[in-house]
């Protein structure tokens, strides 16, 4: 399934990436601080809903998000 | 010893032609391989722009009449950043507008040639010749610690020679080089010779902005937010200025042997003083002429030597007395210094200077 990698220590905690995710809240602000003293964004996708649409990465002013997409396999009808 | 042309392009082969100073300035730059000219109309130097408009276009070289002198100097800065030989010419008020750009080029080690054909000032002043920009030309002019190599010709031929050399000096030191003439030199016509047309060759300039192909990117900037880093850059600049001071002092001397009075004058004032001194000698007065050609670096050492034998110095300028201060610096008041100056674009006549010399020699009526 698709996913994103966030370079946490480069994130400036601006939250813009959290405002565009079509799946709602796959990108959230973390509870902890990063090395720069910001609360970084983190990828939270337990159900694997991320489609790799890259909107969060597009919105990031600091290019800290890298996106990997796996083409969704056709659901095989049991 | 009649004045000799100490600087100059040896080995001219072309014939002499009668040419207006401003046009000779333009042709000299073209012969020196100037690839880009950016100017703005301002009397008394606009003919340089007009001549360049014709010739540079003919030769397929870059020419733009800029929106202002501020635009022009920054176009020069851009072109010079690519390693191209670039030039602008202007006159006093325009030269004032160029100061910021020049300061940037000095700090980012970008070579170019700038000719200031000085006119009456301050303010809008007028269009007659003047030497009122000496401080601005030799003491930096813009913000920060820098001095530009400033060469002051007194004839059209010498202007041609110095402009051709200025391009090589700019490359040699990676600094803007200025030639300071005035409205008289720009407007008079005199016979001149030129070297053959030099195609713009582009010597190796690893620092130039030519596209980061097969190398790391180049950045040309004068911004160094860290003070220690800016100081390091300044030290590099000061080292260049020291080199200029050591290698580029130029002057001409006329009848100094046994001269009790030494007249000191540069550019047009130097030329007029030469006539006056010649007449005074014909009337038996022991007087000589010292004519600085490089006004930065100023010939302090040579002047100090002269002050040891001379009894009196007479500084002649078309200003309120600016080079005068450098003469005082050089001679530390070891010998009395008189000053004769005209301002406002008034060009002194030889007779005026001759009377002053006679007065000093005690034989004045």
């Amino acid at each position, binding site marked *: 399934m698709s*996913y994103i990698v966030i370079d946490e220590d480069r994130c*400036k*905690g*601006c*939250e*813009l990436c959290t*405002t*565009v995710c079509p799946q709602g809240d796959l990108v959230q602000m973390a509870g902890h601080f990063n090395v720069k003293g910001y609360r970084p964004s983190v990828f939270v996708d337990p159900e694997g809903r991320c489609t*790799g649409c*890259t*909107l969060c*990465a*597009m*919105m*990031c*002013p*600091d*290019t800290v*998000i*890298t*996106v*990997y*997409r796996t*083409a969704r396999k056709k659901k095989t009808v049991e | 010893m009649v004045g000799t042309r100490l600087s100059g392009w040896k080995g001219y082969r072309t014939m002499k032609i009668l040419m207006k100073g401003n046009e000779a300035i333009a042709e000299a730059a073209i012969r020196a391989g100037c*690839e*880009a000219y*950016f100017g703005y109309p301002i009397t008394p130097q606009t003919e340089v722009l007009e001549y360049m408009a014709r010739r540079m276009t003919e030769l397929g070289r*870059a020419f*733009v009449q*800029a*929106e*202002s002198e*501020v*635009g*022009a100097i*920054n*176009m020069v*800065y*851009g*072109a*010079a*950043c*690519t390693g*191209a030989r*670039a030039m602008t010419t202007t006159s006093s008020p325009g030269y004032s507008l160029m100061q*910021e*750009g020049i300061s940037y080029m000095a700090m980012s080690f970008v070579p170019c040639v700038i000719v200031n054909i000085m006119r009456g000032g301050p303010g809008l002043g007028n269009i007659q010749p003047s030497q009122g920009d000496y401080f601005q030309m030799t003491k930096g002019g813009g913000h920060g610690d820098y001095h530009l190599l400033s060469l002051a010709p007194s004839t059209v031929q010498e202007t041609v020679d110095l402009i051709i050399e200025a391009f090589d000096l700019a490359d040699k030191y990676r600094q803007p080089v200025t030639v300071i003439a005035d409205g008289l030199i720009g407007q008079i016509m005199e016979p001149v010779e030129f070297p053959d047309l030099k195609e713009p060759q582009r010597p190796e300039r690893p620092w130039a*902005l*030519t*596209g*980061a*192909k*097969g190398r790391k*990117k*180049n*950045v*040309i*900037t*004068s*911004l160094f937010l860290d003070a220690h880093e800016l100081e390091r850059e300044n030290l590099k600049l000061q080292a260049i200025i020291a080199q200029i001071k050591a290698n580029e002092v130029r002057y001409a001397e006329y009848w100094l042997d046994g001269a009790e009075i030494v007249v000191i004058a540069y550019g047009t004032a130097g030329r007029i003083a030469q006539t006056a001194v010649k007449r005074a000698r014909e009337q038996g007065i022991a007087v000589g002429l010292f004519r600085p050609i490089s006004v930065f670096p100023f010939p302090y050492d040579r002047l100090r030597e002269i002050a040891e034998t001379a009894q009196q110095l007479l500084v002649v300028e078309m200003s309120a007395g600016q080079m005068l201060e450098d003469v005082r610096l050089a001679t530390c008041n070891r010998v009395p210094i008189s000053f004769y100056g005209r301002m406002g674009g008034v060009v002194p006549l030889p007779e005026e200077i001759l009377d002053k010399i006679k007065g000093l020699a005690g034989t004045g009526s």
Partner: protein
Amino acid sequence: MSEDGELVFRRPAALSDVVTHYCPGCMHGIVHRLIAEVIDELGIRERTVGIAPVGCSVLAYHYFECDFAEAAHGRAPAMATGIKRTHPELVVFTYQGDGDLASIGTNELIHAAARGENITVVFINNAVYGMTGGQMAPTTLPGMVTTSSPYGRDVKRQGYPVRVCELVSQLDGTAYIVRRSAYKPAEIRKLRQALKIAFQVQMAELGFSLVEVVSNCPTNWGMTPKESLRFVEERMIAYYPLGDYRVRDEVKTLK
């Protein structure tokens, strides 16, 4: 998580792998990335020269992997002219804020456009002088409070904001003058496309191109980054409508 997925989004090669000095949420970072993406896509990194202004993006030369020069405040278009006229084969772009371009540098901008210089100007309009701490800019909106319009911009005493695209598109030397924004992904896509076209206009020597980006300044607007996006969408774009202001015919036929 195995990294078996296909990499679909990463830092463009033309964007230096460094942390920028820009404030959190500042759109400069987005525009920088888009320019770098376009440079990569067009394959011109090795013949592009950028010119940084004086302002927040004065350090832009740290953030691009192509040759760069630092211009005096407002003079980037003149510098670009000098570079382009001596090296037409180079792709030259200036990157300027509203103080640099619409205040001190207006004369250089207008005449570079009137001359039809084949250069590309990327103009970031965030209605305030950012680097110097939030003063009023020529593009500050009426009523907007800044450190030099503390009672809100009073048009009677401090005049009206300057609409640059509308102004510059009157000049026949211009070939492509558009205004975009980056406050949401759909707009970011349009902005990226506009930047690409602008560079292509230059490469096809069709004349002067300018892309204005209606941008934000969370720090000096006194807002969170998210709030600043709303301000851009609701207040800024109302005064600076997005769209195409001049697109010469030949541009339309560009591939």
